[in-house]
């Protein structure tokens, strides 16, 4: 039993739980009100986009008709929507280390349940003028009421009249294979992609997460039918944090994809993506406190993946494979100017993630989801670690039933069960299993 292992396993779980708690989710009835379309026009089941909704988004929240500019809207129209999900959930965390009265520790399964709230998303989005669009998403934490800005960006669409040139500036979700902001699951365990949030055991200090909205610029383009797409982003190495808390480096992200329409089946899409970036490994200090923005000793990381989104009529399956690697100094939480502090056997961490996510859209009102994610370490940060340490298996099933399908608002009944096993991460070297059960009403208006 080692306390570093305990803290690292805790971090790993915490990363998941936090990702599930603060998730912004995009389903914007304000668009439906503006254009008079039901939610189902853009969403297979909100918030998951269908091909029409993806085209609408890629066009800068425009239908590309004469009604896109706000000047053509009723003067009382306000492009704002809100979303929250009151729910009841049950959480179980196995092999959790607990202090005993005698001063030692033991491991127990901690179960808890109760009524709860997700964060409140205030979604404002639309066009400032024809071909100039915006997205602003303040999100209110239900616990302490603090407000954060999940998204805040302006986008110049169809530059020089071409859909291949769209320029975005601000805070936004990276264009990736699976949108975590449009995720169809909520629970603490199932409400975040391991694909994006996995942190290897070893105290890895790389805070980059594909699932978090990032600050930077994006050049994005697509064909008229949206079958061909690309997005290239340059973002600050702060994982979306404001105030330049780290260093002065930047990360780059590229995503390309191509879709094919197969008769009787639907739109099939394949794509590839990659992110390369740097993270500081130490800071300058003043009076014993780190100086914000003085990060030094940058070391690299990358994420690279391929995916396919396959439709067989009402059934669709997304399969993503990703390889990830963090530099040895990041993986072992060691300052690059002090290489002697690296523990014996230290090396860069590398891992592979497979994500299988299937949906069955019985109708716009009844939607089923199943997801299986597995993370396998291909290289531990310490050579002495067991090869399977930290490996994850996450399984999620659920469904959503939408009580009605209007163009003004939306209400869904949601039930979900998710369970995750992380290998050898308890303090006694046992596998840890965490499970969530979630049911509640998801509404947006």
């Amino acid at each position, binding site marked *: 039993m080692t306390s570093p292992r305990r803290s690292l396993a805790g971090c790993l779980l915490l990363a998941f739980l936090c990702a599930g708690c603060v998730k912004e989710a995009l389903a914007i009835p304000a668009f439906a009100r503006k254009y*008079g*379309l039901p939610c189902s026009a853009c969403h297979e089941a909100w918030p998951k986009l269908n091909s029409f909704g993806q085209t609408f988004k890629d066009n800068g929240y425009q239908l590309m008709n004469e009604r896109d500019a706000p000047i053509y809207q009723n003067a009382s129209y306000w492009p704002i929507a809100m979303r929250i999900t009151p729910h009841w959930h049950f959480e179980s965390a196995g092999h959790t280390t607990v202090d005993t009265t005698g001063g030692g520790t*033991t491991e127990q399964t901690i179960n808890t349940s109760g009524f709860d709230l997700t964060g409140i998303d205030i979604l404002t989005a639309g066009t400032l003028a024809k071909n100039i669009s915006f997205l602003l998403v303040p999100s209110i934490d239900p616990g302490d009421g603090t407000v954060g800005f999940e998204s805040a960006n302006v986008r110049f669409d169809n530059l020089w009249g071409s859909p291949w040139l769209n320029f975005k500036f601000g805070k936004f979700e990276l264009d990736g294979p699976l949108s975590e902001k449009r995720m169809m699951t909520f629970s603490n365990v199932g409400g975040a992609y391991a694909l994006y949030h996995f942190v290897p055991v070893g105290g890895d200090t790389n805070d980059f997460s594909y699932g978090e909205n990032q600050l930077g610029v994006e050049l994005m383009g697509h064909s008229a039918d949206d079958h061909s797409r690309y997005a290239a982003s340059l973002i600050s190495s702060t994982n979306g944090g404001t105030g330049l808390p780290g260093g002065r480096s930047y990360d780059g992200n590229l995503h390309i994809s191509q879709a094919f329409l197969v008769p009787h089946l639907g739109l099939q899409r394949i794509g590839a993506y990659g992110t390369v970036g740097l993270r500081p490994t130490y800071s300058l200090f003043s009076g014993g406190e780190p100086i914000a923005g003085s990060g030094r000793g940058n070391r690299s990381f990358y994420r690279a993946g391929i995916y396919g989104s396959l439709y067989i009529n009402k059934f669709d399956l997304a399969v993503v494979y990703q390889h990830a690697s963090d530099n040895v100094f990041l993986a072992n939480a060691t300052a690059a100017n002090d290489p002697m502090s690296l523990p014996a056997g230290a090396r860069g961490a590398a891992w592979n993630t497979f994500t299988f996510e299937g949906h069955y859209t019985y109708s716009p009102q009844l939607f089923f989801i199943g997801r299986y994610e597995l993370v396998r370490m291909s290289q531990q940060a310490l050579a002495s670690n067991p090869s399977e340490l930290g490996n994850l298996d996450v399984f999620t099933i659920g469904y959503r039933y939408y009580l009605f*399908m*209007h163009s003004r608002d939306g209400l869904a009944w949601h*039930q979900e069960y998710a369970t995750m096993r992380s290998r050898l991460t308890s303090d006694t070297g046992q596998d840890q299993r965490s499970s969530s059960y979630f049911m509640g009403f998801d509404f947006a208006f």
Partner: protein
Amino acid sequence: MRTSHKTIFLRTIFLGTILLSMIATLVLGCGMAVAQNTGVASGYPVKGGDLTPQQRNGAGIYRRYCIGCHGQYGDGEGENAPYIDPKPRDFTLAVFKCRSTPTGTLPLDTDLIHTVERGIRGSNMPSWLPLSDENREDLIAYIKTFSPRWKTEKPGTPVEVPAEPAVTAERINAGKEVYKRVECWKCHGMEGRGNGPSAATLTDDLNRPIVPYDFTTGYRFKCGITDQDLFKIFMTGLDGTPMPSFGDNIKPDEAWDLVFYLRTLQPVHSKEREIAKQMGSK
């Protein structure tokens, strides 16, 4: 650490309750969804009855995308209709603006499919290009169930569109003469701004106010963007609106002249506009 029998019992009861509640809700949800799909329950029922498999697929697509404006009975009385101008099409009348067939006749399926693909300029009807060809065909099959006309009538014979001649200054001038002779200016104005003397009095077949097209504001027409599309509008008219068919009044050659003249009024670069500039007009 051994787990006590009591703990196991409580855990089993708890998990059993969760499982049963999921199953119960799922069954209830499925039942309601099936009911709604078959037009039994509240919400958005779609027309049931004797639908072919293609029409049934089309019904699902209609329910997903179209029902908010065109309404569950296809009568253009969807929940958004009161807020939309121009009003959504009433499919029960089977009267369509954009056709390749003579005025008063039913359009071809391809005419309707092209309308769905393209959208309608100046209205809330967007382009549904992201839908598959198959989806659009299914949708049209379903839309045709709203009017009995589709059971008793056949679509008209498409108007022939002869090959487009070369544009010349003479043809543009001739087109201007046609514009005056057939009195396009009465609605569209002398400069094509949609402000002719009759413009303020126009109504559609349902007696709702309607404005004539302003050629000086864009390059897209209600029924397409090509010269061929504009040619067809003259020859077929826009049924349901005051725009008549000129198929009996102007010859195909004159219709091409008119196309060339109207292109000179549009605020986009074109051969016609270049020639018009050389001629000293706008």
